[in-house]
C-alpha cells in the first residue's frame, strides 16, 4: 500500500508541477521522504543504461534516446536533465504503473557524477557509460581524482562498464578488469604529437604516478597514452572512430559505418561514438544507428544558429568553469573560415553564485590567433578578467575589443561583414545574447 501511495503521490505532483512549470526533482524528493527505499521495490526493465562523466552526458543521453526511439524501442529517460537522485526518482515513479513496474524496453539515466553513488544505491544499471573526467565547476566540485573516487563508489560489480579508452583517468575504472566495453578514437588527421593545452592532467599516470608518455593527443590529455612503469595504457577499443574528416563533417566507425556531423567538433564525435556504442549493444542494427545519428541536431539548445542583421552566426554553449569544453568551442570557431568571435562572461554560473574566474587561465585561448579569426570581442561583467587573460595569450592585440555591455557588443558586430559570428558563452548568459538576435 505504501508503495502504491508513494507512486501515486509522485505522479500527481509531477502532473501538477508540469502544469505550473515547476522543476522535476521535487516529486521524487517527497516520494523519497515517504518511502526512502522506494526505488528498491520497483520492477525495472531489462536494460538500465546509465551515463555519467564531466562533459557530454546530456548530449550523449539525448542521442541514445533519439536513436533507440527511432528504432522503435520504448525508452524512459530524464530529458529534463534532472540528474540527481530526486530527479531520477521522479522519472522512474512517474513512468511506473501503480503496482511498481516501469513499462519500457530501456531505462536511460543521465546521472550527476558526484551523486551517482546515491542514485545507484537502489538501482543497478546493466550498462554504465563513463564519458570523461575533467576539471569542472571548481568552486563546487573537487578535482577530477576526487570525482573519480565518488563515481567509483557508484559502480556495481555486475554492471557492464562502457568506458572512454582515450581518457587515462576514466580508463582506471577498467584497470585489470575483464569484460569492459571500450570506445575511443583511432588515428585521425587532427591528432597532434605534442601537447597543446595550458595544463596537462595526463602528465603523470593516474595509477602509479610515474610520468606518462603519449604517442599522440586527440585534444588536451585525451589520446594515446602509456605508462612505462605500471603498464596502464590506452586499451584497444571495440567501438572505434577509425576516420574523422572534421572539415567535411564525416566520421567512420569501425571502418564501415559512416555518420555525417551537424556539429563538426571532436567533442561531438565522442558523444556520437558513445551513443553508437550503447545503441549497438542494446541490439539496434549498426546501419540503422548511422541513419538516425547522421545530421542529428541536438535539441538541448547547446548549439544555436542565429541571424544578426546581414550576418549569420552560431552560439556554442560552453560550460564556464570547464576549460576543456571551452577549448573545443574555441577550436570549432578557429577552424572555420573567416569569423568574428564573441566571448561573454557575465554571470559565472547559472545555478549558484560564484565570482571566480580562475578557470579562464586553464583555457587555451591561443587558438584564436588563427588568421581565420578577425575580431575577438570580450563582453560581460567579467570582461576585464577576460582582457587580462588575453593579455597573457598569443592572440594579436589589435584583434581584441573589450565591450562590457552585451548590447553594445551586439551593435558592434551588427555590420555588413560577410564573416560568420561565433558566440561562446555559458547557459547563464546565452539568453542575454539570443534576446538581441533572430534565432534561426
Amino acid at each position, binding site marked *: 500500500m505504501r508503495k502504491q501511495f508513494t507512486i501515486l503521490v509522485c505522479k500527481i505532483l509531477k502532473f501538477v508541477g508540469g502544469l505550473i512549470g515547476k522543476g522535476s526533482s521535487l516529486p521524487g524528493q517527497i516520494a523519497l521522504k515517504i518511502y526512502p527505499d522506494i526505488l528498491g521495490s520497483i520492477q525495472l526493465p531489462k536494460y538500465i543504461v546509465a551515463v555519467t562523466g564531466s562533459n557530454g552526458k546530456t548530449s550523449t543521453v539525448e542521442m541514445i534516446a533519439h536513436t533507440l526511439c527511432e528504432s522503435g524501442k520504448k525508452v524512459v529517460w530524464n530529458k529534463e536533465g534532472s540528474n540527481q537522485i530526486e530527479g531520477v526518482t521522479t522519472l522512474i515513479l512517474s513512468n511506473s504503473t501503480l503496482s511498481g513496474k516501469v513499462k519500457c524496453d530501456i531505462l536511460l539515466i543521465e546521472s550527476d557524477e558526484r551523486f551517482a553513488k546515491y542514485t545507484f544505491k537502489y538501482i543497478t544499471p546493466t550498462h554504465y557509460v563513463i564519458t570523461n573526467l575533467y576539471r569542472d565547476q571548481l568552486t563546487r566540485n573537487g578535482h577530477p*581524482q576526487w570525482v573519480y573516487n565518488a563515481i567509483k563508489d557508484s559502480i556495481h560489480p555486475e554492471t557492464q562498464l562502457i568506458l572512454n579508452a582515450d581518457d587515462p583517468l576514466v580508463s582506471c575504472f577498467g584497470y585489470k578488469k575483464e569484460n569492459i566495453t571500450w570506445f575511443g578514437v583511432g588515428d585521425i588527421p587532427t591528432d597532434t604529437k605534442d601537447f597543446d593545452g595550458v595544463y596537462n592532467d595526463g602528465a603523470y599516470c593516474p595509477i602509479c604516478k610515474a610520468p606518462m608518455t603519449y604517442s599522440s593527443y586527440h585534444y588536451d590529455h585525451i589520446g594515446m597514452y602509456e605508462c612505462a612503469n605500471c603498464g596502464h595504457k590506452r586499451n584497444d577499443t571495440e567501438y572505434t572512430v577509425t576516420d574523422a574528416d572534421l572539415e567535411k563533417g564525416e566520421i567512420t566507425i569501425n571502418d564501415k559505418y559512416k555518420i555525417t556531423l551537424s556539429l563538426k567538433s571532436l567533442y561531438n564525435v565522442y558523444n556520437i561514438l558513445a551513443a553508437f556504442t550503447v545503441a549497438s549493444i542494446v541490439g539496434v542494427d549498426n546501419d540503422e544507428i548511422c541513419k538516425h545519428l547522421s545530421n542529428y541536431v541536438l535539441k538541448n539548445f547547446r548549439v544555436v544558429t542565429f541571424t544578426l542583421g546581414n550576418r549569420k552566426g552560431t552560439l556554442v554553449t560552453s560550460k564556464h568553469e570547464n576549460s576543456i569544453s571551452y577549448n573545443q568551442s574555441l577550436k570549432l570557431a578557429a577552424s572555420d573560415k573567416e569569423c568574428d568571435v564573441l566571448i561573454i562572461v557575465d554571470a559565472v554560473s547559472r545555478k549558484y553564485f560564484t565570482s571566480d574566474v580562475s578557470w579562464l587561465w586553464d583555457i587555451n585561448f591561443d587558438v584564436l590567433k588563427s588568421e581565420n579569426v578577425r575580431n575577438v570581442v570580450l563582453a560581460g561583467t567579467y570582461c576585464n578578467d577576460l582582457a587580462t587573460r588575453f593579455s597573457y595569450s598569443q592572440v594579436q592585440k589589435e584583434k581584441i575589443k573589450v565591450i562590457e555591455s552585451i548590447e553594445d557588443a551586439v551593435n558592434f558586430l551588427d555590420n555588413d561583414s560577410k564573416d560568420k559570428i561565433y558566440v561562446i558563452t555559458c547557459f547563464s548568459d546565452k539568453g542575454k545574447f539570443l534576446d538581441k538576435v533572430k534565432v534561426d
Partner: protein
Amino acid sequence: MKLLHLYHDIMNLYGEYANVSALERIISNSGENVEIDRISLGDTADLQAYDFIYIGSGTEDNQKLVLEDFAKYKDSIAEYINSNKPALFTGNSFEMLGKTIIDCNGKEYEGLGIFDFKVVEQNKRRVTADIVYTADFLNKPVVGFVNKCSEINGIDSHLFQVKYGIGDSKDSTNEGIRSNSFFGTHVTGPILIKNPHLLLYIAQLISNNTRDFAVSTEHLQRENSAYEVTLRELNKRYAQ
C-alpha cells in the same frame, strides 16, 4: 632576478601557473631581467639561488607524492624563510610545511616541521567557497576561492582574517600563515592576477630584498578593474 616554480606540472590546479606569470611580467616591466626555472619531482635546486619560490595546489594524492620529494629541501627551505626571502605556497602545498598531515584513511604523514600546525583531511565533502579576506599589510581585501578537504589547526601567525568565506578550520576567523616573507594560503588559482595589490606587495618584497628596483604598475589597469568588479560582486552577494 630568478624565480623558482617548484612542482609546476603536478601541483597546478586551476590556472595557478599564472601567479608566476604575473610576477614575471611586473618585474620585467620594472626593467629587470627575469629568469624562471620550472622543476618537478626528482629534480634538485639550490633554493638560496632564487629571489622567489612558488608552489601551487594539487590533488591529495599528488601532495603526498610531492611531500616525499620535498622532504629533501627541509633545511634549505627553513634557511630560505629565515633569511626573509619571499615565497608563496597556495592551496594544499603549504600544508607540507607543518608537523603532520592525516589523510582520510587516518594515515599520518610527517610534514617538514617548519611550522607547528597540523592538518587533517576527510573525503566526505569538498569544502569550497568564494572568499574575501583582509590582511594587516594590505589596504584592500583579497578576493579568491578555496577548494579543499582539510582542516588546519595550530597556526599562530596568521596571513589573513576571514571577512567572507571559510578559514583554516570550521569556525576559524583566520586563514593561512605568514612568517617573514613566506606566504601560505589555501586560496587556490591565480591569486596574484586577481589581487594586483597583493602582487605589488610581493613584487616590492622581492625588490627590497634584492636589487631595490622601482616596481612598475602601469600595466595593471585591467587587473585593477577586474578586482574591483569581483570585490563588488562578492560584497553584494555576501551582504544579502
